[in-house]
């Protein structure tokens, strides 16, 4: 489903984020990417939706080479992915409900069907009673759950999360992780970048440990 082969990514100025990275992830896997800050976790995740392009090597997602993908094709790749960003990227000028509606706006659903899907996603993360609230009034854990609802509303086959528990207390973090596990159990491939060792013990997933842009063995 996702396969990296000989992937190298260096930024302008010579900083090498990833070096000769090769691995592959099968459909339905739950994988953690660990490592210190700057180990290349975020870069790895950004290569999958073509937010970044590899300097060399190939990144295959569902058989498509995202490194050489033409710009107009990228939106369609991204619609098949659920992205949870390190900085959340919630919109505070609209309600919780409208935040979840955003990914449905350009996929062509009729308003009624879109609203139904959005409510279903909010229900899954336990935020349906707060649908009219502004995201700014939510707690840290609730905000992160809102990000998850927005990521899964299009029913993606792959979920990518960058440090989803970074700013959460341990109870909220465990809650969020439990959610990822439940999505994984219904067949969604889940990739989570984190440096939270406690969570890894909790879920006992496959771990890709990064150090200096390489896999640790």
């Amino acid at each position, binding site marked *: 489903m996702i396969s990296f082969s000989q992937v190298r990514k260096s930024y302008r100025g010579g900083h090498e984020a990833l070096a000769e990275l090769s691995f592959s992830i099968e459909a339905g896997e739950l994988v953690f990417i660990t490592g210190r800050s700057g180990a290349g976790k975020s870069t790895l995740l950004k290569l999958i939706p073509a*937010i970044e392009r590899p300097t060399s090597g190939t990144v295959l997602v569902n058989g498509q080479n995202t490194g050489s993908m033409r710009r107009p094709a990228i939106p*369609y790749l991204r*619609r098949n992915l659920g992205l949870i960003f390190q900085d959340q*990227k919630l919109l505070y000028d609209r309600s919780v409900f409208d935040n979840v509606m955003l990914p449905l706006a*350009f996929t*062509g659903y*009729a308003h009624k069907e879109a609203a139904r899907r959005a409510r279903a996603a909010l229900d899954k993360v336990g935020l349906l009673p707060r649908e009219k609230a502004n995201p700014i009034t939510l707690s840290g854990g609730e905000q992160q759950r809102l990000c998850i609802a*927005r990521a899964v509303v299009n029913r993606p086959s792959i979920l990518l999360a960058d440090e989803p528990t970074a700013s959460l207390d341990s109870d909220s973090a465990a809650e969020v992780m439990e959610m990822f596990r439940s999505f994984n159990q219904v067949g969604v491939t889940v990739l989570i970048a984190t440096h939270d060792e406690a969570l890894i013990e909790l879920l006992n997933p496959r771990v890709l440990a990064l150090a200096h842009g390489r896999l640790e063995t």
Partner: protein
Amino acid sequence: MNAWLRQHWQTCMLTLARLAGSPFATLLNVTVIGVALALPLGGYMLLQNMGSVTRQATGNPQVSLFLAPEAGKSDIAALETRLKQLPGVRAVRFISREQALAGLKRSENMAEVVAALQSNPLPDAFVVEAGGSAAELERLEPELKALPKVAHVQLDSAWLKRLETLVALGRTAVLILTVLLAFGLVAVTFNTIRLQILTQKDEIILSKLIGATDAFIRRPFYYLGLMQGILGALAALGMVYVCMLILNMSILELAQLYGSDFRLGFFGFADCLTLVTFAATLGWIGAYLSVSRHLADIEPR
């Protein structure tokens, strides 16, 4: 409803909601565009009215032909038939020197002067009415001059020609003003859209990240430019209409003094539609330029 239409409809509604959501900013933008459009529009309205006045006045342009003193009865008769055969001539009226003198005697100031005259110094004359415009009459002039026994040809429509030229000059001025202010309108829209893009920067970045196409991201801004243009055009029509009503109050008084029922007329539906389309196009162009220039800068990293 198919998905493409639905997206356009949703964008349209979203744009209207956005405009209504910040009424003060919308009002300011629409006023700026409205004033910019109202200036040439008002000028155009005045010109259109002046044009109709000239057309009315030039309905029957006249030319006076003064005959040489030695012209006899047979010459006059021959001349009359020739004049009636000329193309563009509608009516020919003969005024004999006696008739002219009698006419002069009737006018108060001239009676004494005429009485003092020992002989009649006035020539026989023809008044020729032409069907076309003042310019057409002018083309006829050399032909009339070349006729035998014609001493002098006097165009009564010279002042009308001056008015026509003045109206033409006015048209050029309004055209220049229109072009300049059209650039202004594009610039205003360009800037509004730039600010709107900056305001929505987070939303744009997020939309790109979760799979919105460029067309989808651009569309609301095109609509915004388009609608601002339309609202501005409607504002301009309103402003010019109110100005016309105010002017008509004064014109009515003036016209009554001259025994005329002249008043300024407003644009027809077709003209209004043209203006709205014109402004909408300019708004769209402004939005297009702004979006092309500024959206590329917003790329998620």
